[in-house]
C-alpha cells in the first residue's frame, strides 16, 4: 500500500479538492473520500450510488484504484449515478 495524492471534483460542487487516498482503495472508497468533502456540505445529499470517472472511464466500484493506471495528481470525477 502506498499513499496516492489525487485531485477530485464532485460534480455540482464549486471547486476541486486535493485528497490523499491509498492505492489499495477501491473506486468506491475513493469516491466516498472525495464525496466526504462535498456532499452534505455544498452539494445536496442524495440516495444514489457514488461513481468515479477516471480518464473518461467510469470505474467499477470494486476496482482497486492503484491498478487502474492512475498516476499521482491525476484528476477523478465523482458523481451520483442516477
Amino acid at each position, binding site marked *: 500500500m502506498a499513499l496516492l495524492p489525487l*485531485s477530485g471534483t464532485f460534480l455540482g460542487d464549486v*471547486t*476541486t479538492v*486535493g485528497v490523499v487516498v491509498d492505492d489499495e482503495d477501491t473506486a468506491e472508497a475513493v469516491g466516498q473520500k472525495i464525496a466526504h*468533502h462535498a456532499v452534505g*456540505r455544498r452539494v445536496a445529499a442524495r440516495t444514489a450510488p457514488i461513481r468515479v470517472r477516471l480518464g473518461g472511464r467510469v470505474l467499477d466500484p470494486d476496482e482497486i484504484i492503484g491498478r487502474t493506471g492512475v*498516476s499521482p*495528481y491525476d*484528476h477523478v470525477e465523482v458523481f451520483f449515478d442516477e
Partner: protein
Amino acid sequence: MPKLSRSDWYDLARDMNWTFGYVNEADVFPEELSGTGRVPPEAWLAWDEPYKISYREYVHNQVTKDTTTYSLKNAVGRSKLFDQLDPGWKSVVVAHYGAIAMPEYLASFGEARMGRFGRAAAWRNTATFGTLDEVRHGQIQTFFPYGLLGKEPRGDWALKAFHTNNWITLAVRHLFDDMFVANDALSVAIQLTFTLETGFTNLQFLGMAADAIDVGDLEFGSLISSIQTDEARHAQQGEPTIKVLIDNGHKEYGQFLVDHMFWRAWRAFALLTGLSMDYYTPLDSRKMSFKEFIQDWVVKQFADQFRDYGLDFPWYWDEFINELDWYHHAIHTVVWNYRPSVWWNSDAGVSPKERQWLEEKYPGWNRAFGKHWDVLTENVRTGNLAETFPETLPVACNLCQLPIVRAAGVLAGAHTDPAPLRHVHNGRVYQFCSEPCRWIFTRRPERFAGHKSITDRLWTGDINPPNIGGVLAYMGLSEAEHGVDADNYAWANGKH
C-alpha cells in the same frame, strides 16, 4: 517664488543619458534587471513622461496630502466611527490591509528597479518619485491598521501576512513578485504601471474610496483617495515605455507582457474586489455590481487606452468576459467555506435580500451558486456547523495560486469539463485553473516551475500533519485569528 517655472528648466534635469566610455552599457543595464535590451539604447531618448513634476512641487504637494490624511485619521481615531461600521465593510478593510499594504511597499522596489535600470534618465527620475510614493503607500497603509489594533487586532496582518504562508498571501505574493519585485524595469513599467495601475487600480481606488465614504468609513476613504492621486501620477510611466517598445517594432512583446499581467490582475481583482463589492459591502451602499464595475471601467478603459497603442485585446478576451458572470462567485463560496484560513471575517452576503440582488445582477446565480448556499444555509440552521467547515484543501492553480474552480465554470455553462488543466515540465505535474494561467506558465516555465502551491505543499509533506489543523497552523493563523462568519450567521437564521 523663484522666477523660472518648471518648464523652463525641466529638460535640463532629465536629458542626462550619455555614452558610456569606461564600461559596457550592457553591464550597466543587465538584461535580467533592465529588460530594455530589445530596443537600441538611443531609442530610449524618446521616452517622455506625460505628467511632469519637480522635487519642489513633489514635497509641497505631498506634505499637504499627508497633513490632510493623517489629521483625519487622528480625528476619526478618537471617535467611535470604526465601531459603528458594518461588519462586512470591516472585512473589506482588514482584507485590504493584509493583502495590499506590503505589496504597496514592495512596489517601491519595482519603482527603484526602473529608477536604476530604466534606460532613459527621464524615466529614472520619474521612477524616483514613484519610489517615494510607494514607500508612502506601504507606510501609511501599515500605520493606519496599527492604529486599529485595539479595536481590530487583525489589522496586525498588514505587517504579518507576508511573513506567513497563508494561501491568500501566497496568491498575492506570487502575483506581485512576478509583477514588480522580481521583475525587470521594462516589464515593471508595462505590467505594474500600465496594466495594473492604469488598467485596474486607478479606477478601483476611486470606486473604493466612494464606497468607503458611503458606508461612513471616512478614514479609509480619505486614505484610499490620497493614495490614488499618487498612483495616477506615477502610473504614467507605462505609457511612454510601451510607446518606445512599439515604435521600435516590439509590439508583440508588449502585447505578451500586457496579456500575461492583465489576466493575473483580473484574478487578483476577482478575489479582492469581487468579494468586497458583491458580498461584503452592505447592500444599500452598493452602487454597482463587480461585473458592472469591470465592464464600465476596466473594459472600457482597456478598449480606449490600450488600443490607442495598437494593442489588441488579449487572446483570452472572451474567456475573461465570460468569467465576469461566475468566477468570483465561486471563489467567494470557497473563501467563506475556508473562513478560518483567512485573516478577515468572511461575510456570506447571501441573506434573502442579497440573494435577490445577486440574481438580478447575475441572472442564473441561484441556479449555479444558490444551491450550494442552500445546503450551507440548511447546515447553519440545523446547527450542523461542522459541515460548513473544510477538512482538506482545494487544489490550487500553479500559476495564480487560487483554488481551481472549473467545476463552477461547468455549472455556469462556461466549461464542459471540471478537471484542472495540466502541464508536465521536467517530469513534474502542474495544474491550472484556466487556459490563460497555463499559457502564462508554459510561455516561461523556468520563471515559475520551482514554486510550490499550497496544495503541492500538502501533498509533498511540507504541511504537517497533513490535515486541516496542520494547514491552518502552516498558514500562520493562531486560533484567535481564524476568520469567522462576519454576521454571526444572521443571513441564515433570520430575515426571510
